[in-house]
């Protein structure tokens, strides 16, 4: 992609992505917020394309389309006013939140602009992230598999423990013992 074509795709995409992201938290409708988030993250796929990452750009479009549509369903299910017709205010501490957000953005932006990034590009023959891939898929594979299983167990356990009624479910009607502390066979 030529420099001109890159600029033609990149700058409008960046503008739309940031505008959609800001409007996510401005609109009073949860459904609109979900669709704006979908737009923002899908347009980020266009930014990836402009930067030359065709695979990641298309993957981002596909992934975010599916994920955000599911998110919109959750919003419509859980919000008392998903259409935003009652003008609900879903914010708190707006001033302090904005102050912290501006401070974080300024700090990160200053680091990005003021850091003396190396100008040269790493050559084709130089060791690159491919070496990390070989490490992950080679002798360290067991470690990564174990870490992945641990994370999965933690997620399943966290959701189970957060369930209403705990691990063993709610006690049966007329049962004096709490369902939280006794397995089903002890409660009968």
């Amino acid at each position, binding site marked *: 992609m030529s420099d001109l074509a890159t600029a033609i795709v990149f700058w409008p995409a960046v503008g739309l992505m940031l505008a959609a992201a800001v409007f996510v938290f401005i609109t009073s409708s949860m459904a609109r917020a979900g669709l704006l988030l979908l737009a923002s993250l899908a347009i980020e796929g266009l930014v990836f394309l402009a930067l030359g990452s065709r695979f990641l750009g298309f993957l981002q479009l596909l992934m975010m389309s599916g994920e955000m549509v599911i*998110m919109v369903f959750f919003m419509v299910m*859980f919000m008392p006013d998903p259409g935003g017709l009652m003008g609900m205010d*879903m914010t*708190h501490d707006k001033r302090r939140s904005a102050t912290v957000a501006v401070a974080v953005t300024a700090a990160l932006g200053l680091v990005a602009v003021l*850091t003396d990034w190396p100008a040269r590009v790493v050559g084709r023959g130089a060791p*690159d992230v491919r070496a990390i891939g070989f490490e992950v898929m080679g002798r360290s594979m067991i470690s990564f598999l174990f870490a992945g299983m641990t994370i999965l167990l933690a997620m399943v356990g966290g959701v189970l423990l*957060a*369930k209403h009624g705990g691990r063993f479910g709610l006690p049966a009607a007329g049962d004096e013992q709490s369902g939280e502390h006794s397995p089903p066979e002890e409660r009968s």
Partner: protein
Amino acid sequence: MISLPVVLAVAALLFGVGVYGVLGQTNTIMIIMGVELMLGAAMLNVVGFLRYSHPHATSGDFFVLVLMTLMALEGAVGFALVVSVFRSRRTSEADDLTELSG
């Protein structure tokens, strides 16, 4: 060619919007949306660094795939917790969740 600091500055702006969403919203699902934007900014950073340090290599895309998976997991676990809290409290407002028990 778009320079690396420009990409990083754009990612910083997107991250800042996400921070505002996480801190300023009261609904749990909106907070999750803020976290999604912050992870999107992290992805943009990784893509920027990959394009400018190893423009010919595609193996680094693996890291962005990990981040995309993390976004999906964060959404899945977050929604599961919202469902769980909504069953017991009948609300998904973060301001109403002031106790760990009950």
